[in-house]
């Protein structure tokens, strides 16, 4: 029951990329040393960590607590790798010798409590040298350069032993599995600094830096029955690309020693042999794509009941150490009822070999109903067990109902947390930006629309007038015709041109035709008769007859005599037009009254 509860508490940890790690600097500690308990919380999202209460450790007294936080964002290709971490260091002093345990304590991260693991410790007397912690004694490697056993513990003599050892000295891995080789500086002297100058590489592997401290952090170890201080210089991740015996890179550098003076000691690493075994040819799963490592797989599903138009996100998380850069995303075996996108990949890897890789698949249902989640398989070669393993996603039922209106807005919500940086846009040229409103065509188009609108409005206004007030419309049209024809007639009269009479006569009859709807096909006498019937004053008709008579007479006169009465007739025709115009207005006023 307790175990079940424990796993239940750990379940959120499995789902997220949250890592909580508790370590101590030593499991066996002497009375004159201090215990450093380090709590590191790491996640690929931001953390909100409440400062934990220091656990009460029997046989120890709590002295101090320091904390630090860090964040890093690294872009690998288009994949963004981010890590946020908080580290708490608890310092304890031993009170008594004996065996004890650091109890499990709870840490509040992002509003949830997570338990830590318990750690067993032993406190020994101060005079006794503690045994090696991080590295087991390694056989078969002699002292570096000279036998210094006579000088151990004698600080008066300038002699000592300093060397670089690549650990493990020899290891076996299957082809493709990343081997970690750690280079330690072992010394029993006072080393001020170490300068790494060269890495001599061999064939048959690819490498990446797994860890590289910025300073020498010593720890006490026993090596071949002798006590040394050792500090990590570098850790490399080696991925073999052939089988057989491989020599890991050989580090070269020099250590600066303090004694009676300064001395530089050239050093070259030893050890670091990797025996690469071939992958078994039997029982290879069909879906094997070259993944080799010690992996744990987990999955999550964003929803099991959705509407048409909505999407499901299937998340597959691969955690552990392996050749992450040598295998591709697993694919769904069948896609019945769903459209499956290419997965989005988020890596949270150390040196590209250890950590978590998460694949996000977007599944879009194609019709409503109850569907079984498409199966996804992933197979890999497990380095520890030396066998192939196969992962199958569980058979989940997905219920797809009819589309909702809100489904169409679901994309708006999904874009809040983008997962990958989009790449550059390739273009042959980048034209200068000029907004449309600053380009001539835009204003020409706008003026065209305004012009056409005004013209159409005028036409519509005239139509309306013709419909609502036909007399007024006819009068206005007549005025226009008059202006149109009288203008050239006036010009001709001023120039004493013989064209005056035809122009004036044409203007007069066009005007009368517009105003009284007299047909142009009628003769002059018929037109006069029609005007008589329109109740036009006699004086106006007389003036009209006189003008027409002059016009008729002028046609048969010699050109030189035609211009004799021009001015008089110009005034007459103006009088006629004014009379007809006033006649129209007087009639309008009477009708309005």
């Amino acid at each position: 029951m307790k175990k079940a509860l424990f796993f239940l508490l750990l379940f959120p940890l499995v789902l997220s990329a949250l890592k909580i790690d508790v370590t101590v600097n030593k499991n066996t500690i002497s009375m004159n040393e201090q215990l450093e308990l380090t709590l590191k919380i790491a996640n690929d999202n931001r953390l909100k960590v409440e400062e934990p209460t220091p656990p009460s450790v029997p046989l120890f007294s709590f002295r101090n607590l320091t904390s630090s936080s860090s964040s890093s964002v690294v872009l690998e290709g288009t994949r963004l790798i981010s890590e946020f971490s908080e580290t708490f260091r608890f310092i304890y002093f031993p009170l008594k010798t004996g065996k004890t345990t650091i109890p499990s304590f709870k840490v509040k991260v992002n509003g949830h409590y997570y338990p830590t693991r318990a750690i067993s410790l032993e406190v020994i007397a101060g005079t006794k040298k503690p045994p090696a912690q991080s590295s087991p004694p390694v056989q078969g490697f002699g002292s570096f350069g000279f036998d210094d056993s006579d000088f151990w513990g004698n600080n008066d003599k300038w002699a000592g032993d300093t060397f670089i050892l690549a650990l493990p000295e020899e290891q076996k891995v299957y082809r493709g599995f990343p081997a970690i080789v750690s280079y330690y500086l072992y010394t029993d002297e006072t080393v001020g600094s170490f300068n790494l100058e060269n890495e001599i590489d061999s064939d048959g592997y690819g490498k990446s830096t797994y860890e590289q401290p910025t300073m020498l952090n010593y720890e006490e170890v026993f090596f071949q029955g002798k006590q040394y201080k050792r500090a990590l210089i570098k850790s490399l991740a080696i991925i073999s690309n052939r089988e057989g015996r491989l020599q890991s890179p050989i580090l070269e550098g020099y250590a600066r020693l303090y004694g009676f003076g300064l001395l530089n000691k050239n050093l070259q690493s030893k050890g670091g042999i990797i025996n690469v075994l071939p992958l078994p040819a039997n029982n290879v799963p069909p879906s094997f794509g070259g993944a080799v490592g010690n992996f744990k797989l987990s999955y999550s599903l964003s929803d099991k009941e959705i509407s048409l138009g909505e999407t499901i996100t299937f998340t597959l998380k691969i955690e552990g150490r392996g050749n992450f850069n040598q295998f591709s995303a697993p694919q769904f075996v069948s896609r019945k009822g769903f459209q499956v996108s290419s997965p989005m990949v988020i890596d949270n890897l150390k040196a590209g070999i250890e950590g978590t890789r998460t694949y996000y698949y977007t599944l879009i249902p194609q019709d409503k109903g109850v569907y079984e989640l498409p199966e996804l398989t992933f197979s890999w070669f497990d380095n520890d067990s030396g066998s192939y393993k196969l992962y199958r996603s569980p058979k989940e039922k997905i219920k797809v109902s009819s589309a909702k209106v809100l489904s169409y807005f679901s994309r708006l919500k999904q874009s809040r947390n983008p997962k990958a940086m989009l790449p550059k846009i390739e273009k042959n040229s980048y034209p200068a930006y000029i907004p449309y409103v600053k380009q001539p065509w835009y204003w020409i188009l706008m003026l065209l629309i305004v012009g056409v609108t005004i013209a159409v409005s005028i036409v519509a206004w005239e139509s309306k007038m013709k419909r609502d007030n036909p007399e007024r419309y006819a009068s206005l049209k007549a005025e226009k015709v008059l202006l149109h024809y009288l203008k050239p007639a006036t010009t001709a009269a001023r120039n004493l041109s013989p064209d005056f009479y035809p122009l004036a006569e044409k203007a007069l009859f066009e005007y009368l035709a517009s105003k009284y709807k007299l047909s142009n096909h009628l003769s002059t006498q018929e037109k006069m008769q029609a005007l008589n019937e329109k109740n036009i004053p006699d004086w106006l008709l007389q003036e009209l007859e006189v003008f027409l008579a002059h016009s008729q007479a002028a046609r048969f006169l010699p050109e030189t005599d035609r211009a004799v009465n021009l001015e008089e007739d110009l005034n007459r025709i103006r009088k006629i037009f004014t009379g007809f115009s006033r006649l129209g207005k007087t009639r309008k006023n009477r009708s309005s009254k």
Partner: protein
Amino acid sequence: MIQCNRRKLFLRRKIWFLKKQSFSELRLTGVFSFSRFPLLLVLVLLLFCQVLLAQVDTLQSPRYKNSGELFQLPDSLDRIINEAEQKKNADLFYNLGVEFFSRGEIGMANLYFLKALNINSAHSQARTNLELSIHYSPDADLYPEQLFLVQVLFKVLNYLSVNRLAVGGIIFMFLSALALCWLLFYNPEKERALPILTLALCVLLWISFFVTLGVKLHHQQHNRNAVIIAREAELLSPASNNVIQEVHSGLIVKIVQENGNYYLVRLPDNQLGRVKKEVIRKVVS
């Protein structure tokens, strides 16, 4: 000549009006029937929508070179920056943003994404990358979570870039003109509610588009946004030299006032403070 043409047009219309007995048969010569005006409106909208959609296509379906792989800019970065500042091309600004991001310069990356968005607020790639950069920045908590409807509103406003607003404005201006013609030539014996409603709607949208366009153009030229480009910077109190908080590279601020060697800035969470001029870079310099 013009007068003669007008006269011809007038006479033609005069004859045409005389021929027609009822206004219900009123037609624009050989173009369309007013009774089919709504259909025409839809057709016009569809026609102009292609202009808008064409813009979308050019933005949303860029040709990627080696999808998922960043490629180096062809020449020195300085030359590209100068070219981008001269041309003010949104895609070029966006590419510079991606380049700076790949170099780990988050502040400069955000600056160029903002420059791209200042030119074209509908540049979806620049917005996605900016959101990603903000999401993973140490100051991500300073950006407030907006309500869903506010998000929708901002998305609509962002979609309507300056050029889209200009095209949309002219479309609605044209539709307003058509609706006006429809109203003017509408049968006076019939209820006029539909043409009046159509005209009012078109005019309202036309005015809205042009007002928004004016505001956006002004904002484009006087954008007060700026980005912290130093890895870390101290935000000082507006009135004293007390440090309020530390801000980091990439944080987007709004410049409120210039004050000697400092800018008075407003953080995304509305916190006011002063930062040194050298740690900040304006979007519109």
